[in-house]
């Protein structure tokens, strides 16, 4: 029981910290901005985690969907003159619809083929944005995306208000992710990740479930993209680049794929790490690349997964007398 309270306390503390954070850095727009961007990426990484971490399907088109969300908001508000909120809603719907169609096709392929197929679909989205000048502004990008329209007395002109707006969506995203993972639906996804053959024999419609999981995953990406457009107010084809998806993946792996806190831990860690190394921007990957490789080989379940395992080990050592055949839990093959 004490453990549960402990965990709950940590969560409450974190939320409190997130809430008062802007008060501490009230006069530091830069810090708030970085934090807000970090939250946006975190939302996207949560989406990736549901599909790759829980359902076991590595989609490398994730940045493409992030871009679809971002460009939908950008185009609808600048060229369509739509209200931001309506544009954001439409952006998520457009992303989901695209995800549904692409998922339907992509999920017919499996494992390596799925990864390659989605990598190429992601690249096609990038090329499309890059070449479709008339709609997307091509290589020049899309400028002058308006800030979110005020809701009654609440305006979104300050960095602080954008921070809270994004925080709201982040908490919502985490809430949804937690609810899904701890539900029968989440159990279904984990069963598919563990073994598609076994899941099918248990009466699970794997095709349908993977598709739904795919659509949820891209919905997160689309939402994050839409918020990103409103925050930065300028977007270019780079948001769809493979580097973007590789970044998301890196945040997820280092934080802990298939864990609920992994996306938050990984993304925030890297966002600040990147700021810290800002003057060496081009060379980030000299460190991050090997970290990624190192993590996958030695800590495949990331920081939070590794922490969790240590805790399990510690607990099972305590309860040794209850279970007879305790062995140390193998670190590999967490996600089969």
């Amino acid at each position: 029981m004490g453990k549960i309270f402990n965990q709950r306390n940590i969560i409450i503390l974190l939320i409190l910290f997130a809430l008062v954070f802007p008060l501490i850095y009230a006069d530091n727009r830069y810090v708030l901005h970085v934090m807000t961007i970090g939250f946006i990426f975190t939302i996207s990484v949560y989406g990736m985690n549901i599909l790759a971490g829980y359902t076991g399907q590595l989609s490398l088109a994730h940045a493409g969907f992030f871009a679809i969300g971002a460009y939908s908001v950008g185009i609808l508000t600048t060229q369509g003159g739509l209200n931001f909120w309506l544009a954001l809603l439409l952006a998520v719907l457009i992303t989901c619809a695209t995800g549904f169609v692409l998922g339907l096709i992509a999920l017919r392929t499996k494992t390596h083929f799925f990864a390659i197929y989605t990598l190429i679909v992601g690249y096609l989205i990038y090329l499309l944005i890059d070449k479709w000048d008339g709609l997307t502004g091509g290589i020049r990008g899309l400028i002058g995306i308006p800030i979110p329209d005020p809701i009654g007395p609440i305006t979104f002109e300050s960095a602080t208000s954008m921070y809270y707006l994004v925080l709201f969506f982040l908490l919502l995203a985490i809430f949804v992710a937690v609810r899904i993972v701890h539900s029968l639906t989440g159990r279904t996804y984990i069963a598919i990740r563990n073994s598609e053959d076994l899941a099918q024999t248990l009466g699970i419609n794997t095709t349908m479930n993977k598709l739904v999981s795919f659509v949820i995953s891209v919905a997160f990406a689309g939402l994050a993209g839409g918020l990103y457009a409103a925050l930065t107010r300028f977007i270019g084809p780079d948001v769809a680049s493979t580097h973007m998806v590789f970044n998301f993946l890196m945040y997820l792996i280092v934080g802990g794929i298939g864990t609920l806190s992994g996306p938050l831990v990984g993304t925030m860690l890297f966002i600040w790490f990147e700021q810290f190394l800002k003057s060496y921007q081009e060379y980030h990957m000299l460190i991050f690349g090997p970290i990624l490789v190192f993590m996958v080989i030695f800590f495949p379940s990331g920081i939070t997964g590794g922490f969790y395992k240590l805790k399990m080990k510690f607990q099972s050592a305590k309860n040794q007398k209850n279970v007879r055949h305790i062995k140390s839990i193998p670190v590999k093959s967490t996600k089969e």
Partner: protein
Amino acid sequence: MAFIQLKGITKKFGGLTAVDNVDFEIEQGKITAIIGPNGAGKSTFFNLINGFHKPTSGTILFEGKDITNTPVHIGARLGIARTFQTTHLFEQATVIDNVIVGHRLRTKSKLYDAIFRTRREKQEEQIAYQKALEVLDFVGLTHMAKAPVSTIPQEAKKRVAIALALATDPKVMFLDEPAAGINPDETEGLSQLMKKLAASGITICTIEHKMQMIMGLADKIMVLNHGAKIAEGTPTEIKNNPIVIEAYLGGGDPVAEVNRHHSEVRGV
């Protein structure tokens, strides 16, 4: 009407005929065993009934209904459960967490229910949890419910796999070499479990290499060789069947020969 009826089932993989024109019936409530050397097509036979493979020709009827082209998950909902030669369990999760999802097919909660944690979701989670406790009790694993699968012995894993199949509320259960890789004492325990399953009204169809076990257990045995059915009958009939004896090394002891083959293990 036969419970499960197979008519002229053939499965070819490229040039290889893995199952060759087999006619067979499985009777309700009985224990049926399928034997044959490695590569005889036993697992493929299961994969055909279960829906993993579509037969090249032939039809399969389940309670009179044609299920030849039914997808695997629909078959499961109709009441066809199975286990695999290798267990496929989620090793890092606890036994009970592995088993709960077994009842998923009898629940209706959707994504919406998950996000809003509706009454239906809560109720069905409870039902699935109770079901898991019930089937773990049935297979005698209540005391291991909270242990991670990676920490339990091989024999217990086989029982977890059976519990998982049982959680789907099946009418028939196909067991692919449930006793492979476990010791004689445990084999006896597994025999008891199969009898208990049959007594509870579930039809059992098992692939087995351990002949002593099968002889005391099965109501009916089918012998496959190179994909073809070479004999079927009661254990006594099979033991004395000249064709079976012939097939197993020209007059050698069928029991010894089958055991010789039981080491290699192949997946689906």
